[in-house]
């Protein structure tokens, strides 16, 4: 078992005929994922490396039983692509596309939520489980089956850290790159319960960044509801304080959002916080029960 994806995951790639869509459909298949369909309006009847292409997600779902979507379509069309997949019955959509206006994402998030569909992303590397499937773009090479869960707001930093875990001789249960946009479909707080109840995860690595209050919210959740050990890292401790989004933004975050507040909140919630990415594997290995190394 793993989180959200499994051997039963059947992926439709929206925007499969674009360069990114084609490349990553291939990588997902190489990972062992069932990429059953692609969608590009006007390209029905063609194939991309043997994957059939349809005009609509509805057709793709009807003809192939696709149950997850990986969205690569350009930002101006991403909202429509997501709504289409939700209306076609897709309940897990990974949106890789970056630069989606947050006003669009508000619509997408609440529409999907109202219909019981989960979005991961946008602007995210997606989800992968070495024993399950991959929906997204995390490099295949960083994975090794194991019992460490990873959730992260970053992209390449996630790869770095997941790879570090592998190189230390450990492995991952499921890794989710949530994306760092202002509005994300799945936040730390949304992802934590999934790992809490995942029998394959013994320890969770949480990778955060400065800005927003997602890490503080996660700390709060961990404190009250998360029973497994957590190793965390916050990127940006040395970064100059960014320009704030006006005064209203300050009202919303009210003394949260810096590396200091995030680290303090996570430590108070019982997490071990690494100061640098390369400290993570040692911290993990120090906590992980000997029997659960892979």
């Amino acid at each position: 078992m793993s989180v959200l994806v499994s051997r039963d995951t059947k992926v439709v790639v929206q925007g499969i005929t674009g360069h990114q869509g084609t490349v990553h459909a291939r990588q997902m298949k190489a990972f062992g994922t069932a990429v059953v369909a692609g969608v590009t309006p006007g390209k029905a009847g063609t194939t991309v490396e043997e994957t059939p292409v349809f005009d609509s997600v509805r057709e793709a779902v009807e003809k192939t039983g696709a149950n997850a979507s990986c969205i690569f379509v350009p930002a101006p069309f991403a909202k429509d692509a997501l709504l289409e997949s939700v209306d076609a019955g897709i309940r897990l959509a990974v949106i890789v596309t970056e630069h989606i206006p947050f006003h669009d994402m508000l619509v997408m998030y609440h529409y999907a939520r109202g219909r019981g569909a989960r979005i991961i992303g946008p602007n995210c590397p997606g989800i992968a489980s070495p024993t399950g499937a991959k929906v997204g773009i995390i490099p295949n090479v960083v994975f090794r089956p194991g019992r460490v869960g990873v959730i992260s707001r970053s992209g390449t930093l996630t790869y770095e850290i997941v790879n570090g875990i592998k190189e230390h001789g450990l492995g991952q249960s499921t890794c989710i790159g949530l994306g760092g946009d202002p509005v994300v479909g799945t936040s730390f707080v949304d992802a934590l319960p999934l790992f809490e109840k995942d029998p394959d995860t013994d320890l969770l690595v949480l990778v955060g960044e400065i800005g927003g209050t997602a890490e503080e919210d996660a700390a709060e959740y961990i404190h009250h509801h998360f029973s497994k050990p957590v190793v965390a890292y916050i990127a940006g401790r040395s970064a100059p304080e960014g320009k704030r989004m006006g005064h209203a933004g300050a009202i919303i975050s009210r003394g949260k959002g810096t590396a200091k507040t995030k680290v303090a909140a996570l430590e108070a919630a019982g997490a071990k916080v690494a100061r640098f990415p390369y400290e993570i594997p040692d911290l993990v290995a120090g906590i992980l029960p000997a029997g659960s190394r892979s």
Partner: protein
Amino acid sequence: MVKLAEWRGKDVFRKYGVPLPRGRVARSPQEAEALTRDGSVPLPCVVKAQVLAGGRGKGGAVKFANSPAEARSAAEAILGLEFKGERVKELLLEEKLALSKELYVSLTLDRTLRLPVLIVSARGGVEIESVEDAAIDRQPVDPFPGLTGYQKRRAAGALGLSGGAAKSLDRLLEALWKLFNGEDAELVEINPLALVGDGLVALDAKVIIEDDAAFRHPEYAEIRDDRTPLEEVAREKDIAFVQLDGNIGVIANGAGLTMATLDVLQEFGGRPGVFLDLGGTDDPKKVTEAFLLMARAQPQAVFLNIFGGVTRCDTVARGLVEAMRQVPEAERFPLVARIRGNNEAEGVEILRAAGITSIPSLKESAQAVVAAAGGRR
């Protein structure tokens, strides 16, 4: 993020029907005098520097004038001022209104709730951060169905408005809500919002438009934050580029990895200068351009830290080798490379063939570049 100057924000306000004082923009003392003399701006008036930073009042960037001559001398005093790093080039002259209350109203995004939030306070006219929480009312607003009547009533209650003033607030909030959505705003803020008689008037305007929505808003294309020339070049090439005051140039891919790289450099006493986020690319030319850009910033050493995903290691290696060929002798810099991830072996081999060693450990590579830049500060 496109921050609009007050007068531009007020142009947008006007489009949505937000009540404003009568006013005009002036770019010279002569113009300021003429606008007040011919009645375009009624007297007495206020003369405000059009800069994006807050705290203009305390900072001497806002003055009052009772006559055209005073308007002229106020303009002379303010124009050309350097205010928190911005040169004042434009003024907004507006009639001075007899107001009975200064209020605060804004709409922005609450990331945790994933909802816009309406923030109001009866304590306007001061920095809202300095107002205690109990005096600030926040209400999340669902895009569907939008701002409701009962939310407007609650806002009126929190602002102490009733009767005609509450009706004026209803219209104002409806306008701000339409603006927030219609213009893809990150922030719409009025502080102070003045009660004049039983009507509301926006004395200030802060509007920030989201960059990602630029495809829907070509009208904001020309309004951009000031950038250094190098930042401008980077923007054109779609490379995230930030200039700090250190001496180590950093080229990485992805915001998180870039930040982590800076954290590690700092740990070993390095001072990051320019940093540059390649983002996701598999075009070696973009990598080459990034290096040429970096060279122009004249760092003492450069740290290339790439984890290959969309951006493959071999792509980066090819771009780097080509850049090294092109960089003029005078602009050469010591380089420490670390390339990991997708196509790592190919990339490492390409670099090796060009005489560059990739150090796989983040810690060791960071230490190496700090040493190359002259050691701990």
